[in-house]
């Protein structure tokens, strides 16, 4: 019987436990690497303080934002959005079969899976700016190079997450379809994809948001869109125009995020 007035002290867990020596060593190594990285990253409080007046001057020049080139800027924003939509949609279409081949539960052979996974990993590991430079050098300046970059970037992003979503679906309905005698394509289309759909929609919409943000940056290296306008404004010290462009980018990104949240809620509740 337990004495509630005199609770037993034996067996009471310690409030704190010393970390495992290996954990402590790893933490110390990380801390040392971080401090070394601080110096390599060029962090300098002095330079930051010296730069503050410049920041204030540029900030002051940004107000009020310029309205003299609104029309070409709006056209560039539209091109940016169109690049993002086309790049994402084509990227999604290409990602889906690759993801099926890369998913453990549907791949025709482990070698195929390893090859496709390797391809997707390679595409994802190379930064989008590097792809943009490659495509600008290959097909020339302009939105086509940007769109190609976004397609490849979307394949790298969605290929991996689609494959994981496909692997995570409940095995029951595909097994039931196999028991019926359905073919592999029927099983994928009728059981696996409908169950993975919420995850696929989520990933697809994130890819669109990511593509909109990327397409802005891609313009800086000549891959078309509003980024090119931003680079020109900054090079000509027209900070008021740059402010207008930044505001336009902000509105575009917010609009796409709001729209994708709304679509996510709508589509995930739908019926097949």
């Amino acid at each position, binding site marked *: 019987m337990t004495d509630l007035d005199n609770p037993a002290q034996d067996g009471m867990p310690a409030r704190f436990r010393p970390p495992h020596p290996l954990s402590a060593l790893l933490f110390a190594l990380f801390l040392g690497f971080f401090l070394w990285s601080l110096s390599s990253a060029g962090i300098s409080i002095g330079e930051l303080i010296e730069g503050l007046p410049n920041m204030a001057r540029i900030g002051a020049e940004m107000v009020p934002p310029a309205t003299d080139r609104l029309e070409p800027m709006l056209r560039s924003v539209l091109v940016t959005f169109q690049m993002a939509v086309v790049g994402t949609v084509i990227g999604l279409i290409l990602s889906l079969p690759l993801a099926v081949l890369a998913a453990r539960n549907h791949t025709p052979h482990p070698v195929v899976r390893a090859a496709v996974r390797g391809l997707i990993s390679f595409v994802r590991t190379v930064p989008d700016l590097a792809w943009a430079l490659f495509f600008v050098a290959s097909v020339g300046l302009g939105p086509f190079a940007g769109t190609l970059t976004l397609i490849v970037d979307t394949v790298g992003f969605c290929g991996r997450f689609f494959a994981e979503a496909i692997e995570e679906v409940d095995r*029951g*309905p595909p*097994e*039931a*379809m*196999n*028991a*019926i*005698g*359905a*073919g592999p394509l*029927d099983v994928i*289309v*009728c*059981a696996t994809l*409908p*169950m993975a*759909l919420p995850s696929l929609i989520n990933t697809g919409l994130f890819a669109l948001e990511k593509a909109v943000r990327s397409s802005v940056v891609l313009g800086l290296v000549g891959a078309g869109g509003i980024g090119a306008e931003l680079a020109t404004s900054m090079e000509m010290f027209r900070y008021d125009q740059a402010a207008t462009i930044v505001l336009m980018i902000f509105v575009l990104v917010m609009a796409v995020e709001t729209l994708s949240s709304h679509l996510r809620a709508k589509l995930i509740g*739908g*019926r*097949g």
Partner: protein
Amino acid sequence: MTTLHAPVRPGFEPAFGHRARLPPVRPQADPDTDAHRGASPESPAVRVEGLTKRFGRTSRPVWSDVSFSVPTGQRVAIIGGNGTGKSTLLRCCLRLIEPDAGDIHLHGQKLDGRCARTLRHLRSEVGFVFQKHNLVPRLSVLSNVLHGSMARTRGPRQWLQSLARSEDRDYAMYCLEQVRLGHLAERRADHLSGGQSQRVAVARALMQRPRAIFADEPVASLDPQAGEEVMETFADLARNHGLTLVFVSHHLEHALTYAERVLGLRDGRLDLDAPTGRETLGSLRSLYD
């Protein structure tokens, strides 16, 4: 044994005409499929010889040298304690799980895992109802039932009810009405109760126009009343349409009520094979000692 007839419902015009005879339960033979060669109407629905299954190369077999034969139209219950491999045995009978040794014949044709086409064809003749209904949750009830038609026809038209041929939609509705759920055809599968889901799974199996139904603990996740309803549905369908029924169950009462014969697994072997008329609850319980 009765034949399947199209139902007469207000506002529902079967493609086959008023009270027209629907296609037979038994699927048409595919002359190109090797599996059909050598099959005869007298062949047992299921014949298993020397079946052995182990998980992992060095582990003890779940069961070994299991042999039995189920004549066409017979209702058979498979019973046994937890971990005796009842569900594994049923899945092995369709090669959903690959056995390590032994032969399986369905309706007189050897079920060989090497030819995907033959395997799919032989599987299509057996409706399999799982412990968990295994419906595709985001699709409508009618689309789920239509998937059963992939046993005979494949392609995009069988993927969704909105793409399906009229005669397939009609037959799917008829199958749903066989399990008294025609009124829920448009509902999403994940908006059904457990009992309703299981009955939709039965309708999907009927859509195959199967010669046999295998059911793996079909009432395990249902309340007693829903469980009785599902078992009644199975038994009625088997009796009325001459289907062979093989079901796994932990409910000994169900084995005695709905089966004509009981197979019992214990200690890695088939320990009991007897008509239910000879068995009592007490004698079946001894299998669990």
